[in-house]
């Protein structure tokens, strides 16, 4: 009962935050010096008379005040209409839908890989502080935590695609072939490098965090007691450490969705992978305001749901919190 109340409260909060995101991103778009009519017309700008411009502005509602425009947009949003993307010449919801389908494969597999690998590396490093394995893993995590995502992707392309020729340099499938005809194997072949790069970057935070939790446990009274009873390091790490460190790692994995998405924008750009990240960049560079707004809201929803799950996981999984009150 308390749990449902808690989740209901968080859902209300989520709606409030999303409204704020909508308000902020709309305000930013209004503040932009780029004229949406110019962006829409592109090079045809010169052939349009001021009267025609005024007509376009009237038809699109640009002659109204910002507050009324926001009201219009919000009403459309609630009815499920995100607007029309002039870059892709499709409704925004369709662009996001199609692109997200491709991105979710990349994001999902990188996320799983980084969570699992990051957790196991963290446990291995934290089990014996100061060992060679610990030093190697910590150094690796410390360095990748400060590596620019796109640079790592560039290095990966240089090494595996250009020099060794193992993987293709770009896109989600071979060029010149319809997307329906691309085989699963070729799809996977194109995915390997982007997924690995994205996962390599995501590992660092989870590893460092898990390692810290493991160290905490290894210095605790629980571990000392277990050691006194003759338990080996492996025993303690396996029986006590895993439980102690798994919950924060899971929470962190859900909470890091935003960072993962940010990384995927850069990596999709380097690998020319036609996902949501690439669409974001295209929308921004070519001033496709409806698409940019749609993506901002969509990713905010994505990240907020991740955070919501992260917050609720504690209460659902850990019985101590459920009984003790949060």
């Amino acid at each position, binding site marked *: 009962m308390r749990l449902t109340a808690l989740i209901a409260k968080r859902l209300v909060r989520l709606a409030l935050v999303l409204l704020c995101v909508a308000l902020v991103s709309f305000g930013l778009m209004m503040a932009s010096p780029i004229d949406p009519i110019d962006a829409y017309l592109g090079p045809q700008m010169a052939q349009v008379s001021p009267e025609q411009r005024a007509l376009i502005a009237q038809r699109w509602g640009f002659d109204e005040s910002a507050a009324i425009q926001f009201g219009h947009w919000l009403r459309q949003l609630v009815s499920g209409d995100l607007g029309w993307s002039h870059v892709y010449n499709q409704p925004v919801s369709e662009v996001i839908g199609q692109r997200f389908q491709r991105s979710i494969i990349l994001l999902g597999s990188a996320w799983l890989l980084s969570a699992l690998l990051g957790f196991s590396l963290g446990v291995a490093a934290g089990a014996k502080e100061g060992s060679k394995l610990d030093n190697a893993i910590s150094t690796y995590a410390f360095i990748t935590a400060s590596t620019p995502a796109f640079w790592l992707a560039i290095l990966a392309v240089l090494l595996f695609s250009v020099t060794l020729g193992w993987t293709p340099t770009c896109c989600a499938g071979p060029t010149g072939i319809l997307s329906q005809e691309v085989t699963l194997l070729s799809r996977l072949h194109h995915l390997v490098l982007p997924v690995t790069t994205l996962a390599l970057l995501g590992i660092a935070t989870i590893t460092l965090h898990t390692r810290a939790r493991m160290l905490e446990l290894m210095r605790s009274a629980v571990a000392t007691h277990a050691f006194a009873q003759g338990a080996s390091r492996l025993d303690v790490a396996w029986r006590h450490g895993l439980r102690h460190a798994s919950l924060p790692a899971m929470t962190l994995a859900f909470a890091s969705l935003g960072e993962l*998405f*940010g990384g995927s*924008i850069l990596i999709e750009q380097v690998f020319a992978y036609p996902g949501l990240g690439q669409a974001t960049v295209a929308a921004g560079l070519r001033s496709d305001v409806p698409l940019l707004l749609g993506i901002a809201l969509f990713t905010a929803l994505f990240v907020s749901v991740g955070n919501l799950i992260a917050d609720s996981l504690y209460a659902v999984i850990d019985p101590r919190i459920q009984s003790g009150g949060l």
Partner: protein
Amino acid sequence: MSEAQPRLRAALSLGVTTLLVLGLVASQWLLGDSAQQMQFDARLAPPSLNHWLGTDALGRELWARTLAGLALSFWVGCLAALLSTLIALSLAALATLSPRLDALVSLVIDTLLSVPHLILLMLIAFALGGGTQAVIIAVAITHWPRLARVLRAELLQLRQAPYVLISQALGKSRWFVLHAHLLPHLIPHCLVGALLLFPHAILHEAALTFLGFGLSPSQPAIGVLLAEAMRYLSGGYWWLGVFPGLALLMMVLSFERLSNHLRRAL
């Protein structure tokens, strides 16, 4: 190990980083505009004794351009981290004034944290029309929430400290309490916070510029260098992609180390 002499280590890494930064700034002053000078007889030359890190498609020396890019990153990162810390400090102080303001600030923080950083950066850079100023403001606006949370918690705790309560009971003004008792305590937090922000600021500046939303392509920023390198990747001109990124990583790592040591020492 590293816990033995935290202050010595902090001083050492402070010295090394300061030297590096001074060298960087001095090099910009000494080199002048050699980052933009083209040599058409040495286009896309690989690294050699004459061209230390090779040259780009217009025959410009990559080492000069990388140094110039690092210096640009440094200034942008400095300004952005400073601005961000100021925002964090003022909003944390504001949040402790009343519960309503506190709720408002935490709503703003939640809103900012719910959009992926990079997308928010792109939106802000788009709203400001791009350019150096836009990048600095965008990075400053997006990076303060975590520090603000730390400072807010610290302030709330300090408010209840006996000496602050006594000072208030003696009739000292709010302003006096703030600048004589509370601020001196927050300065180390702000310093470490700003240092922790700095690497993030640099990385996000480079990412934003790489995507084409940041510094203008005519400036030798690291993001611009790497975006240019992308075009020559399949030709096997590896030095264009490797060195600028490596230099950026070095700078970020040295600042990361410094802030870690300082945090332990303070």
